[in-house]
């Protein structure tokens, strides 16, 4: 068995170390392992960004027939959390079989492996869950829109069956975190493939991610694409004073609120992340209260 020891990662200062860890421990690195052990005996806590990427990593091993084992201290927070979000259940039982897992905690939903046929049901269930347990009387359109754009992005462009989504509400901070990860092609690869086909010069990974967020730009992975999805995610995040992190191949975009104002970074990485990670942090204080519908007809054009 090859054991992967999971450290505690501070998401403000050690975020990219985690993504590098995932990239360096993919299936090809340990293809001859009899099993993969996930050791969280020294982990204080696991954040959504770790759980979703871990799910994709373990799915990759599972798809290649390598079983997954979990090493944790009994009653440890991290061990319990992995159980609560379904990771231990899914990979102990040989992969994601159910349409949806039952939730255990009132402020987080279990991992869900992206399945096109249940997408709309998943979104409705997510909206209902957070409305019933945490955000009563709040208009959760920003949550649904952010999720649907990120999930459509995977379905239309990733070219992979390996995609996971996870969400968690932090009541003290009034923050809802939604993370979507896939081990697909990646945004920079898609953008540069598209540009190469049109005899245009290739861009750096950072430039590719910036390009992908331009209104109306699309790599036309599917004929109906018009290029609004990623820009919509960003607009949505801005409207509720939130944060956005995109990590894809060798590039990233990180828009986040700090004590000193908004930090907006788009840059290249020294390692390559397999696929795309989208992390959205929404400030629930900016969610509107549920409004009644207007009976006044309004012209759209």
């Amino acid at each position, binding site marked *: 068995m090859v054991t992967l020891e999971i450290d505690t990662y501070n998401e403000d200062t050690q975020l990219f170390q985690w993504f590098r860890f995932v990239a360096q421990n993919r299936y090809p690195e340990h293809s001859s392992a009899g099993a993969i052990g996930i050791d969280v005996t020294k982990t204080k806590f696991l954040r959504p960004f770790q759980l979703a990427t871990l799910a994709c990593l373990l799915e990759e091993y599972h798809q290649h027939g390598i079983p997954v084992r979990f090493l944790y201290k009994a009653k440890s927070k991290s061990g319990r959390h992995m159980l609560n979000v379904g990771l231990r259940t899914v990979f102990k039982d040989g992969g994601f079989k159910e349409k949806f897992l039952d939730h255990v905690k009132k402020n987080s939903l279990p991992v869900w492996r992206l399945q096109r046929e249940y997408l709309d049901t998943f979104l409705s269930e997510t909206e209902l869950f957070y409305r019933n347990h945490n955000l009563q009387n709040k208009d959760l359109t920003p949550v649904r829109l952010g999720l649907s754009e990120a999930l459509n992005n995977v379905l239309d462009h990733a070219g992979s069956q390996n995609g996971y989504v996870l969400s968690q509400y932090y009541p003290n901070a009034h923050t809802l975190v939604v993370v979507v990860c896939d081990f697909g092609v990646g945004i920079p690869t898609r953008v540069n493939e598209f540009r190469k086909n049109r005899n245009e010069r290739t861009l750096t990974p950072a430039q590719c991610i910036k390009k992908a967020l331009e209104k109306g730009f699309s790599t036309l992975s599917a004929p109906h694409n018009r290029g*609004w999805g990623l820009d*919509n995610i960003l607009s949505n995040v801005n409207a509720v004073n939130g944060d956005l992190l995109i990590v894809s191949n060798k590039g990233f975009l990180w828009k986040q609120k700090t004590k000193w104002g908004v930090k907006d970074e788009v840059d290249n990485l020294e390692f390559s992340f397999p696929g795309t990670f989208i992390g959205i942090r929404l400030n629930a204080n900016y969610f509107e209260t549920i409004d009644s519908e207007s009976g006044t007809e309004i012209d759209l054009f």
Partner: protein
Amino acid sequence: MATDKVTIKVMDVVKGTTTNADAMPLYLSMKNALADNKIIVLSLHKATAMSSSFMNSSFGNLVEDYGFETLKGRLKLVDYTPVMLDSVKRYLDNLKKIKHS
């Protein structure tokens, strides 16, 4: 000139508002109504949030077929929340900017 109105309730016509495929029944309903020279009153009663993919394949396709000028006064919205209205208007504003750039 079209004068007769027809109300289309989005959630009666579609199964979801997330994917491009979800939007097809709505697009076809609107297209048929326009072909019959009707003014469409689109009801968003209890509608779930519409993704850009959904709007591409409904409103976006309609704009491709008819153009902004022809659709003036032919499509009205009702039973919308402020958030929903903002989302649709933002999509159409962006589409207009792209078309005219």
